[in-house]
């Protein structure tokens, strides 16, 4: 029984950073921006969160600082891709490199190279009074960090914004056909820039959840591919918030399963359990693949005559 419980609650926990980041990317992707740089943004968020929490002694202020810093970082990405109209993928790759270099440099400058990580205020499990007491359901759904609840609450909101509001329509259209948007008076560049900043906000939160929720410290390169997984989650989720939630959960579950198997089958070479999440993703992708919502203008800068 509590096997099941721990499996599902682990799933939710592991799905959260992917979901947070992906909920940001889904908007920038819809706006026609391919953000390979998410990995770097999360890394920046992870470090700045820890620094913030260390300085202010408050994990929430830390997260706030993480958001601000990551948004600034995202603004660089926006500047190069939207204003300068440079190639998004190259810039994204560059941003990842920049992030790994900067985080290492700053982290060592502040806390030294090989010393113990600083004591920081971290997110604590926040059981929802009452609900968390319900057997099975409670521990699975209502016994998590606040950011876990937040991430999942954000899904319907994001869905509403994307498909019911004027802003959402603009974002979706700018990615499909920027020229058409231009002809109806939409500021294509502005729209894209803002959605990049927005994805920065969420990447920042996602990063600080990794460094202050799932862990309580920063180590070099700790995102370890999480950004790319989030990117995959968006494509896998077919560019909708709901879909993104689904795919994040698939990733979460297959990772939970992987750890489970690693623990159970300690005699099997570790590499095989480690492959499971990726295999599962490919397989389920082949099963569920349908008409893609990939924006037509995706990845292309909009250049006027």
């Amino acid at each position, binding site marked *: 029984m509590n*096997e099941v419980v*721990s499996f599902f609650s*682990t799933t939710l926990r*592991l799905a959260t950073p992917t979901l947070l980041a992906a909920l940001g990317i889904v908007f920038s992707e819809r706006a026609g921006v391919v953000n390979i740089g998410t990995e770097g943004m999360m890394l920046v968020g992870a470090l700045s969160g820890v620094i913030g929490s260390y300085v202010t002694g408050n994990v929430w202020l830390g997260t706030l600082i993480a958001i601000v810093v990551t948004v600034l970082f995202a603004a660089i990405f926006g500047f190069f891709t939207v204003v300068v109209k440079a190639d998004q993928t190259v810039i994204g790759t560059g941003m990842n490199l920049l992030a790994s270099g900067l985080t*290492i440099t700053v*982290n*060592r400058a502040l806390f030294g*190279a*090989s*010393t*113990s*990580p600083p*004591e920081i205020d971290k997110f604590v499990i926040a059981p929802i009074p009452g609900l968390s007491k319900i057997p099975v359901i409670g521990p699975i759904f209502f016994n998590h960090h606040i950011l876990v609840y937040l991430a999942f609450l954000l899904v319907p909101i994001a869905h509403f914004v994307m498909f019911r509001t004027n802003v959402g329509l603009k974002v979706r259209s700018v990615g499909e056909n920027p020229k058409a948007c231009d002809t109806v008076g939409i500021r294509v560049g502005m729209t894209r820039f803002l959605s990049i900043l927005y994805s920065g906000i969420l990447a920042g939160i996602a990063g600080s959840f*990794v460094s202050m929720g*799932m*862990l*309580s*410290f920063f*180590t*070099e*390169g*700790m995102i*370890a591919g999480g950004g790319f997984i989030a990117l995959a989650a968006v494509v896998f989720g077919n560019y909708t918030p709901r879909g993104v939630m689904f795919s994040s959960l698939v990733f979460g579950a297959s*990772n*939970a399963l992987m*750890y*489970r198997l*690693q*623990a*159970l089958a*300690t005699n099997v070479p*570790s*590499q095989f359990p*480690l492959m499971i999440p990726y295999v599962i993703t490919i397989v389920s992708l082949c099963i569920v693949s349908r008409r893609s919502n990939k924006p037509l203008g995706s990845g292309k800068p909009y250049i006027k005559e």
Partner: protein
Amino acid sequence: DKKDSGSASDPDAPKKDVKVALILEGSIADMSWNATAYEGLKRIEGLGATIGHTENTPVASAADAIRAFASDGYDVIFMSSNSFQDVAVETAKEFPDVQFFLINSAATESNIRSFAIQDAEQGFLMGALAALLSVNNKVGFIGGLPINPIINGGKGFEQGAKYVNPDIEIMSQNTGNFDDAVAAKELAKQFVSEGVDVLCPMANQASLGVMEAAEETGVLAIGSGRNQETVAPNAAVVAIIKDTSIAYEAAYKSYLEGKMPEEILPMGAAQGVIYIGEYYKDDISQDIKDKLNDIQQKLAAGEIKIKLD
């Protein structure tokens, strides 16, 4: 010009200004292998040498690194990973009067000396202590990237645990990398849910994840390097330290004295490279501590042999 290479050696250093370089495959912030290697370099600096290093150096760049250092007049070059062996042997030929030290390698050419860190002994001590501490007779070892030190550490761990308690249950897995502390932590939690009550990480910086898991799940943890305990104030028992810095210093001294043995220098408990750190918890029975010290002596004295394949 060499002025910019900011010579840190004080003017009245004992010998002529020796220049010592260290080429690291990983990051000096990994709280273990590379970190202690870097400490070693610092110790050597303390002996009056001018030092230089490169981190995160991929095999593909090792040759360039060697050439760069050698052509900049470095006298001694340490290579911190067995991945570098082939490249080093190749490139060393180009610089006959530079002395090379390879860690965990079998090469002993004219200007190459190798020393083998006894990672297995560290694992053995961790395993033994874990077995001594375990209440439900189930201990867990979590490695990172399955490279040589980690694999041997794992082998040592099993034999160490069995040594004190032949019918102990052992769980041992590698997370596949040193960066992903989350993966290490989640795996550790799974171990605990399987009944493991003593966790032993050997995954560089990712080890922190394991320590934290122990703290959260209220089991014990044995560190594999300094600074890992801070995230687990209640869980951390002690760290079995593999202080390669001592190895480096020893190697350098032997170079200064100009008497370097042909054969591969083993670096383990005997050389004081692998030792038991100071206990973080005071509720560890003296009896256990004695047993462990005894094991360490046996390892040092070579009375315990660890099988590596």
